[in-house]
């Protein structure tokens, strides 16, 4: 437990309380973004660089944009003051006290004799160089050893994207059916801020380049399809905020995004099927080419690409759907 860890944890706790207690939802969303950023810093201190990159891109970046977009379409303030009710407070306190009592039985932070470090983790650490031979063990487990789980997660992300589209509609409603103007038209306001526009535009290519590094270099350094997808989508969202979301929806139409999202999931399961028909198990990349290690390399490259494609496309699709909607 370093001083930095203590500091970030304290900040995480404070920003969580402020996010919940603030009656201005705009403030709440910004506190939630700060909460996520501090949480990402804390993940990094806890030796989880892959998770830290993903949390920073998703929690502090994409999530804040989506919350602000949703607020622009709903309400900026909590209007109804909730009545004090005993039951939720009792439930919460009982849960807190039980967990607190149990926490004294837990191994201390960093204890290498903890049960979690005794089971299969040492096997992954010692066998990854022999079986997969890529330096980033997290990517090796995510993409190869536990490829089934990751395929499931990709399908969940895809399904959530379909869900948002089914709730909000595929094309933005025309202005005649709803009052007010679309969020995209109001967000145009940023165009009058020259400094924001110029500096923001400079960031877009850098962000996209970084996303590509995270995507294709994720075997050697922290990264992979999930974080790269979130970063790439964040770059497109930045473009949408600076230039108007109608332009980002025009550059990357919803139909194309939907097809790309489906394509990513198809690439992933397709690699699994090819392995299956080549005589191996589903998603066993070792049989893809004659050399098992080269097969693993190729398989991980392809499925990470599929993951990145689906995550990028789904997040952009969600952003376009929310940002181009006419306000009530």
């Amino acid at each position, binding site marked *: 437990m370093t001083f930095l860890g203590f500091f970030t944890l304290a900040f995480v706790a404070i920003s969580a309380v402020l996010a919940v207690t603030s009656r201005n939802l705009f403030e709440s969303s910004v506190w939630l973004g700060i909460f996520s950023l501090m949480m990402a810093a804390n993940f990094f201190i806890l030796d989880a660089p892959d998770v830290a990159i*993903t949390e920073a891109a998703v929690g502090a970046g994409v999530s804040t944009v989506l919350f602000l977009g949703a607020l622009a379409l709903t309400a900026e303030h909590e209007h109804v003051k909730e009545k004090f009710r005993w039951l939720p407070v009792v439930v*919460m306190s009982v849960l807190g006290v039980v967990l607190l009592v149990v926490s004294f039985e837990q191994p201390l932070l960093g*204890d290498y004799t903890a049960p*979690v*470090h005794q089971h299969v983790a040492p096997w992954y650490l010692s066998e990854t160089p022999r079986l997969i031979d890529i330096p980033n063990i997290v990517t090796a487990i995510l993409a190869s050893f536990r490829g089934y789980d990751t395929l499931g997660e990709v399908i969940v992300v895809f399904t959530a994207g379909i869900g948002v589209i089914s709730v909000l509609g595929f094309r933005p409603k025309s202005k005649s059916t709803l009052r007010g103007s679309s969020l995209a038209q109001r967000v145009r306001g940023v165009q009058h801020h020259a400094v924001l526009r110029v500096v923001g535009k400079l960031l877009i290519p850098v962000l996209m380049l970084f996303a590509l590094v995270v995507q294709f270099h994720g075997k050697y350094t922290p990264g992979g399809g999930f974080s790269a997808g979130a970063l790439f989508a964040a770059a497109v969202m930045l473009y949408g905020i600076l230039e108007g979301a109608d332009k980002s929806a025009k550059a990357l139409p919803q139909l194309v995004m939907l097809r790309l999202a489906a394509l990513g999931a198809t690439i992933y399961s397709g690699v699994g099927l090819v392995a299956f028909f080549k005589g191996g198990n589903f998603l066993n990349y070792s049989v893809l080419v004659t050399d098992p290690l080269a097969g693993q390399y190729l398989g991980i490259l392809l499925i990470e690409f599929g993951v990145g494609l689906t995550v990028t496309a789904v997040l952009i699709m969600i952003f376009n759907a929310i940002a181009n909607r006419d306000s009530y």
Partner: protein
Amino acid sequence: MTPTSNLVVTALGLLNYWVYIFLLCVGLYAVLVKGNYVKRMIGLGIFQSAVFLLYISMDKVDGGTGPIFQGEPVAGQIFSNPLPQVLILTAIVVGIAVTALGLALAIRIKEEYGSIEEADTQRMDREA
């Protein structure tokens, strides 16, 4: 080791669990008590992050480093546990997708009811 310093070591070693419990309660409070649907999604996000913190706190090993080999394997090098990291990495992205779905529902509720407060929507349902 004196009893006091022993106590401090225990407290610092368990601090991550306590922050996790605190965040869990804060998130649960928002989900149970708040009537505003967007506020509930914020609470759900905090609740979710609490679980992320629990898992990532598990992976830490004293003197360890992130689970990435650098060049040739070094004898006696300790890595943190990669398994919780894999679980949480994917859970974060699934979490944002689910949050987006919740926000989309809140937007639709606003369009239909003109409000995102549970008290308003329930009253309208009763009157309808």
